[in-house]
Structures are given as C-alpha cells and as structure tokens.
C-alpha cells in the first residue's frame, strides 16, 4: 500500500469511527424548565412526565436503537435564566432537541439560541399564540382553542353580557385577554374592565374594588400560574365576589391547593385527569406505578410534555436520523395518540386539540361540563411553510 493510500484509508477509518460514535450514543433531550421562580410549582410535574416518556421509550428499545437521555436545566421562569439555560443546553450539553414547558418570557428569550444552534424545539406549554420559528413546534393550546368554549358557554348557558378581565402584566396575560376581548366583542358581549398587575404583584385590592363597582356578569382571568392565581382567588373570595369566574391559567393541581376558594371556577383545558379514554387510563396507571406517592398530578402543562417526547421519537424515526433539518421536516407529519387523543402538529406547527370545559368541585376535583372535539388553532404562523 502506498503511503498516500495508507494515510487516506486511516483518515477515512477514523472519520467513520467518529461518525459512528456520534450516531450510536444516547439522543439527548434538553428540558429547560422553571425549577425556580413563578413556574417552580408546575416544573416537577413536567420533569416527571418527560422522565416517564423517556423510560417507556428506552424500555421498548429506544429510538433508532439509541437510548434517550434527559438534561434538565433551570430557566428560573424568566428571560435571563432562559438565556443561560438554553445556551448551556445547546452549546455545552449539545442536545439533539429541546422539549419543554416555559413562560412566554423564557421561550422568547431562548428562541434566538434555538435558531442559531439549529435545534428542534417542541414547546409544550399553552400560550398566547403567534410564536413562529422554523425549529419551533407547539403541541399545547392557543387562545383560539381555549377561549371560545368558555365565552360561548357563559353567553349561552349563563346569559352573561358584561365581562371583567384581570391578568398578569406579561405576554401571556395580555395576549390571552387581548384575544378574549376581541372574541367577546365579536360575539356580542361587552368588556367593562380590563386590569393588570405585575407578575409578582400580590395586592389585588384596588382591582377588586373596581370590579365591584363595575358589576359585571362574569369574570375571566389570565394570571401567571402558581402564586398569582392563588392570591387573586383568595382575595376575590375574601371580598365576597362570587360571580361566574373562568380562569384561563389554572390547572387541577393549583386549584386543589386553593381549597374551598376554588369551588366553582371554570377552566378550559386540553387535559383533565378525568378524561375517559384507554390511553389516559394506561398513562395514569404507568405514572402511578413509576412515581407512586411522589406523583405530581398530571395536568394541562405536563401531559403535553409526555406526548411531545413521543412525537419527537416518531419524527426521528421517520427522518431516519437526528439531523435537525430532516427532523423538522418530519415533525408536522407524525401523529401520536396519547392521553389527550391524537396529536399532530400540522397546522402551521400547531396542533388541533380536543378541549374540555370543566368546573372545580368543592373537593378540588374538576368535573367536565362540555367537550369540544379537535378545535382548530387558527392562523398562528401563516408565514411558515
């Protein structure tokens, strides 16, 4: 063998081995989530669902023969923390995908790193809509899916004509209530008040006094999850306000921790633990078996995480590799039937979802009052192919 041929074959052998190693190690999924800050109450359930999905998939043989691995990072529920978390996951841990639930502030801060690092990102949190990026996919609801069931129910079943809107002052709060206002006005109702408090504000007194003066038929709120929900509801009940009350941002877990004050609250969600389907039963059994007493109630913020991991698995298998360009091309075409039913992110990177209108009972559970099948997310990202 000539020296040149020897050198060439050694180099190509080395390259092949390196390429082989890259293709046979674990597939790393990064989960930037609010372990501290406003989302810290929900984050544990999100991490649990991701772990459950990863364990199930690995037990069944992994993805393309490779095991899935989770890398969890704290984004402190905000923009500054998200920048650090995304940078460390994308550039240090070199994750193959990001799958997580975050505040809108955190998501918006992380998107530039996602584009630059070319990492598929499945966002599993409901949000205010219209966040568009070719690497971003959303398997949770947007206002077009969550709000109409509530407003329609209030207008038709309860004859509500005037509404008072209260929210936290950030993208989600303002986005949701902005959409709610236009939907109410489009369907013939009237908004008699719209008030916001900063995300960490705890004193709703002046707003509640304004609400009392305005005498609306119904209240719709969209605060940040966790503490703001609790303080608003507690203070509202203490002020003796017992009007029809729909909360766009509360989940079963938070509702339970509010105790008696939460009774009667309406919520509209794509997941409630009471969904009567074989997939949901199988899912709940597996979750209870894996986590036992430590299980954090699966909710509308954590179940989409479970399904998103499966959707990523299906996309990688269809694409035949973890190459970002191939994966994002396959992503809108794969369908996974999970606890929430069949999920396909084919409407401009968003997914049609079945929505459930529920009411919190006095024992903290949520009773389903009405079901709306496959609600369309509307025009979220018309500029995406």
């Amino acid at each position, binding site marked *: 063998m000539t020296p040149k041929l020897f050198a060439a074959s050694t180099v190509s052998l080395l390259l092949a081995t390196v390429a082989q190693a890259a293709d046979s190690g674990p597939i790393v999924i990064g989960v930037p989530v609010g372990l501290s800050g406003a989302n810290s109450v929900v984050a544990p359930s999100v991490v649990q669902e991701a772990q459950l999905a990863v364990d199930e998939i690995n037990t069944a043989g992994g993805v393309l023969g490779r095991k899935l691995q989770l890398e969890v990072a704290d984004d402190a529920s905000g923009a500054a923390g998200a920048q650090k978390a995304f940078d460390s996951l994308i550039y240090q841990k070199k994750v193959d995908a990001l799958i997580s639930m975050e505040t809108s502030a955190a998501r918006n801060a992380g998107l530039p790193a996602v584009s630059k690092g070319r990492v598929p990102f499945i966002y599993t949190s409901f949000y205010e809509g219209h966040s568009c990026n070719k690497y971003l996919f959303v398997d949770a609801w947007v206002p077009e899916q969550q709000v109409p069931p509530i407003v329609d129910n209030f207008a038709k079943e309860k004859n509500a004509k005037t509404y008072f809107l209260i929210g936290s002052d950030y993208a989600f709060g303002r986005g949701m209530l902005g959409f709610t206002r236009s939907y109410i006005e489009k369907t013939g109702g009237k908004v008699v008040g719209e008030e916001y*408090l900063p995300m960490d504000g*705890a*004193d709703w*007194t002046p707003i509640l*006094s304004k609400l009392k003066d305005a005498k609306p038929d119904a209240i719709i709120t969209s605060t940040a999850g966790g503490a703001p929900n609790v303080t608003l509801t507690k203070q509202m009940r*203490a*002020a*003796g306000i017992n009007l029809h009350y729909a909360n766009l941002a509360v989940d079963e877990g938070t509702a339970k921790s509010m*105790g*008696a004050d939460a009774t009667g609250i309406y919520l509209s969600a794509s997941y409630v633990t009471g969904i009567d389907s074989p997939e949901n039963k199988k899912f709940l059994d597996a979750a209870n078996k894996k986590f036992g007493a430590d299980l954090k109630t699966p909710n509308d913020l954590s179940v989409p995480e479970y399904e998103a991991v499966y959707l990523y698995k299906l996309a990688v298998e269809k694409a035949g590799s973890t190459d970002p360009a191939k994966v994002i091309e396959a992503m809108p075409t794969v369908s996974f039937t999970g606890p929430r039913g069949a999920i396909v992110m084919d409407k401009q990177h968003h997914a049609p979802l079945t929505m459930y209108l529920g009411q919190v009972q006095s024992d903290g559970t949520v009773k389903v009052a009405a079901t709306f099948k496959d609600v369309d997310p509307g025009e979220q990202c018309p500029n995406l192919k």
Partner: protein
Amino acid sequence: MLLLLDILTTAAILFVVSVGLLAIFGVLKIVNFAHGAWLTIGAYCAVVAVKLGLNPWAGLPIAFVAGALLGGVAELLIIRPLYRRPLDAILATWGLGIVIGQLIALAFGRDVQLIPNLMSGTVRVLSVDYSVYRLFMLFAALAIGVLFALTIEGTRLGLSARAVIMNETLARSLGIDTDRVRLATFMIGAGLAALAGVLLTPLTSVDPNMGVAWLIGAFMLVMVADTSYLALAAACLVFGGAQVLVSTFVSPVLGGISVAVLAALLLRINPRGFSRA
C-alpha cells in the same frame, strides 16, 4: 366608601408588616433584609399549626415565639459579631434571607401551601360589603401599635431602647447593657415579623418566596419613618393611600411602585422623612 376602606386597610396591613423592621432599624441601626424571610417563617408556622390539628389562630403565638427564638439565634451568631461593621451586617441579613427561603423550600417544597383562612366572608359597612378579614387587620394594626407604644413608653426595656436609639455610646456609659437591649429588640422585631406573616396568610399565597414582595415596601416605609412608630403609622397611611389611589385611578402596575417612588422623593426633599425627633 370602598376607596376609603381600601386605603385604611392597606395602611393597616403595611403597618403590621413594617413595625418589626422599624424596631430593629431604630435600635440596631441596621436594616434587616431577612425581614421577608421572617414573614415567610411566620406563615409556615401557621401551616405547621394547622397540620398538627390546631386552630389556625394558634399560629399567632407559635409564630411570635418561633420568630423571636430564631431571631435571637440570628442576632447572637450573625449580627453581634458584625457589630462594628453595620454595612456587612446588612449584607449578612440579605444572605440570611436567601438561606432561610431555600431551607423552607427544602423542608416544605416549593408548592403553594393550603391553609384555611383565619376569617372569611364579608360584612356590611355603610352601604358596601367589605371583607371581614381586612377590617380585622385594622384592629390588629391598632392593637399591635398600642402594645408597641406601651412597651416603648412604659417598660424598662422600652426606656433602655429609647436611650440606645438616641445615643448608644452614652447609654452604655450610663450602665445600660446595650448588648441585651439589641438582642431583645432583634427578637421582638423578628417575632413581630413572624406574627405579621401569619396575619398575611388569608391575603396571599403561602410559598417560600411570599415575603420578598413585602420587603421593599416595608424597607421604604421604615426609611421614611426613621425611628418613630407614629411616623411609621403616618407613612403607612399616606403612602398606602397613594398606592391605592394610583392603582385605582391610574394603573395597578404604577400603583405597585408608588410607595418606593414617593419614599425616594420625600427623602430627597426632607432626609428626616416623617419623623420629627
């Protein structure tokens, strides 16, 4: 009417939250930045009391005692060694506050704690239905204020404390055990903070970070009031009223910062704030 009640009850709540901080600032001449953490400790004492099956009201004495004891430990181990370095002592209390918050999160988890309200419902006050608990806070603030005044004007400890506030070196030279006065004051201030934490539970979500939101407001009020509890009451009324008025007629977002902005303006114009001493 609603507006007037809102102003009075907001002022009352601010007073209850800040009076502990005032006591510590007056005598020890440092700002206890762990004040928010002590509010949280108090609230969690109420949580524990309920878990043990006691009446939620039992949380009040338990919190005061627990807060005072922990305050004593903090004063002996952290504040006293830093006696000659007050700026470092202030920084140390900031760190202490963070540590306490994390310890509570480790012990109880980050979840919001459920605790039955001390009082619920509304009562008719001159043509408006108002929250019974907020009206109770008015009386609580008056009661705490009166007890505080009696202690400072009528007891030996109060006399020694006033001497230390006026001039610590002179007080020591007169034979007053200033170390004991500082310890007792810190314990009372911490106990009052914990007590305030219990009183806050029906108004806010009980989680490891609940005290932080109150710290800045309390700090600003104490800066304006300097060492006088009457000045603190006046400050709470004026600034609390401004907060409610701005929130009602301008926007709640601006209302949230009105206490801080007004305090800064007032101190710029008159550095002694509301206190006339």
